[in-house]
């Protein structure tokens, strides 16, 4: 067994050697531009891209014409959300999503909200200019809008109803296990809703959402369904028609393909339209301009093919490894809590809070094993995982969480090593933890007046 051990397969996955082999020719002799229509270099590159497109489409039960290659899932999420809002503006401007979505979805939504707000602020400035008969600066708006009671100003409200920029967004809570509440989803859809964006599987706690039910609700209400399927693809079955998904974000590097390439599935029947966010040569049927990253796309295709062919067996193997990991940890440690649901979860995901031990300290102790933590100390924000918080996990337990991401190249031997190392490290840190000592003495930690800082 080799150290260090990689057990952070939700962050990224290693390149499968078979994928690398498929890519290499396109980094050497077959370097052509897939858009070059008049010579063999271009034809070869185009053939490689189109073969890959078929494999990516096959993984999700789509038609190859419905696949738009991008630079990765962050771009796909941006393109789906901003592209739909831009194109369907006449129909509405409301999005429904979850608080536990990936930042690429949440921050795209936040930008659209901000754009709309900035437009409204401009209108307020103009209206206050009319009402006061002079130029009003941005700084004055806050005080003047109360004085002139703009909330009840009919003229301004009429203007705001015509705003064509940005969007309004509803961020739904999730249940304790991370699942969407379908009744809440139904209730959140209005006649102005154009898009629902809900992920296939969560990147922290592995919760697999009931996408078929979500898609059925969206179809019935005439709302587009975007699904960020990054974490789930190749791990759990997913079919765009079973899910009635209209837009699906995919990336290669979470399925043993290269980084820097992804795709957006865009449904053709019934036809879904998006406005591009990158302008240029009109590649990918005008939805994503830019010279195609041929070698990476070929690798993506190979990775998708392998994922489709090997998923069933691999999922069983990963689930067995995960059970071994969880049982091993439980047999050696007390006071650990599994975050998320064990019923509807990615087979390779395990997220555990080791009470009274801080996540970053724990990662430091197991430095030969690569995992992640929801502890604030691992991020610059000093806020613990927003996903765990949205699932109702207490902040102290969020700080104590470790995410294990098992993947294609992990072995039983590695799992056993990690169990042993975790048990020793948690034990050592608990001996050092005042909270563990107090808990053992029977002191209720919630009864103490802590000094927040």
């Amino acid at each position: 067994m080799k150290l260090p051990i990689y057990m952070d397969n939700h962050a990224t996955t290693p390149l499968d050697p078979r994928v690398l082999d498929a890519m290499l020719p396109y980094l050497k002799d077959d370097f052509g531009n897939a858009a070059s229509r008049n010579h063999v270099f271009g034809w070869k590159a185009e053939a490689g891209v189109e073969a890959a497109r078929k494999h990516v489409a096959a993984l999700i039960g789509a038609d190859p014409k419905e696949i738009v290659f991008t630079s990765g899932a962050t771009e796909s999420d941006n393109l789906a959300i901003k592209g739909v809002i831009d194109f369907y503006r006449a129909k509405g401007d409301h999005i429904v999503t979850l608080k536990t979505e990936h930042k690429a979805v949440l921050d795209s939504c936040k930008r659209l909200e901000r754009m709309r707000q900035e437009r409204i602020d401009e209108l307020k400035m103009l209206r206050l200019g009319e009402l006061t008969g002079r130029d009003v600066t941005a700084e004055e708006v806050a005080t003047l809008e109360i004085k002139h009671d703009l909330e009840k100003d009919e003229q301004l409200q009429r203007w705001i109803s015509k705003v064509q920029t940005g969007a309004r967004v509803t961020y739904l809570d999730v249940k304790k296990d991370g699942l969407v509440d379908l009744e809440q989803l139904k209730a959140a859809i209005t006649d102005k809703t154009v898009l629902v964006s809900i992920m296939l599987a969560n990147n922290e706690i592995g919760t697999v959402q009931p996408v078929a039910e979500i898609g059925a609700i969206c179809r019935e209400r005439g709302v587009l369904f975007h699904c960020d399927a990054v974490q789930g693809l190749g791990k759990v079955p997913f079919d765009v028609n079973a899910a009635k998904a209209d837009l699906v974000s995919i990336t290669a590097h979470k399925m043993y393909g290269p980084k820097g390439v992804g795709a957006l599935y865009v449904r053709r029947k019934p036809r879904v339209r998006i406005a591009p966010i990158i302008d240029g040569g009109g590649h990918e049927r005008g939805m994503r301009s830019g010279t195609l990253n041929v070698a990476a796309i070929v690798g993506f295709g190979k990775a998708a093919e392998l994922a489709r062919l090997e998923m069933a067996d691999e999922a069983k193997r990963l689930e067995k490894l995960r059970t071994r990991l969880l049982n091993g940890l439980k047999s050696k440690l007390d006071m650990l809590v599994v975050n998320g649901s064990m019923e509807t979860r990615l087979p390779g995901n395990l997220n555990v809070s080791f009470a009274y031990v801080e996540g970053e300290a724990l990662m430091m102790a197991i430095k030969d094993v690569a995992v992640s933590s929801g502890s604030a100390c691992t991020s610059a924000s000093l806020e613990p995982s927003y996903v765990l918080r949205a699932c109702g996990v207490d902040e102290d337990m969020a700080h104590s969480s470790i995410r294990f991401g098992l993947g294609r190249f992990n072995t039983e031997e590695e799992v056993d090593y990690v169990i042993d190392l975790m048990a020793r490290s948690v034990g050592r840190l608990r001996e050092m933890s005042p909270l563990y000592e107090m808990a053992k003495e029977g002191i209720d930690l919630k009864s103490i007046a802590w000094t927040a800082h």
Partner: protein
Amino acid sequence: MAYSEKVIEHYENPKNVGTLDKEDPNVGTGLVGAPACGDVMRLQLKISDEGVIQDAKFKTFGCGSAIASSSLVTEWVKGKTVDQAGTISNKEIAKELSLPPVKIHCSVLAEDAIKAAIEDFKKKKAARGR
């Protein structure tokens, strides 16, 4: 994030981990931080009647930098008078451990822990004097 060598050294071989008898009139206990914020430090000082720190023990729930900060101050305060220990600032701790900006709060917590432990000792002493 890369850790400084001193942080790693204190984290891997922390000095003075443990518990002193908090009922002992010569022991001052400082418990600072909050579990929700991801760090809690408990610093205990055994202080002679002349006001000299004879022993120091800590337990910390927190990241490596928090553990290193507490370990460091237990070493620093030993042998110092209460007044001398009270002047240790977070800046000195952060400098000694080369803490990055996002970890400065760990050093602040360690400074607070010293002050809280001394405060607790003084309260006990005052109560005894009555």
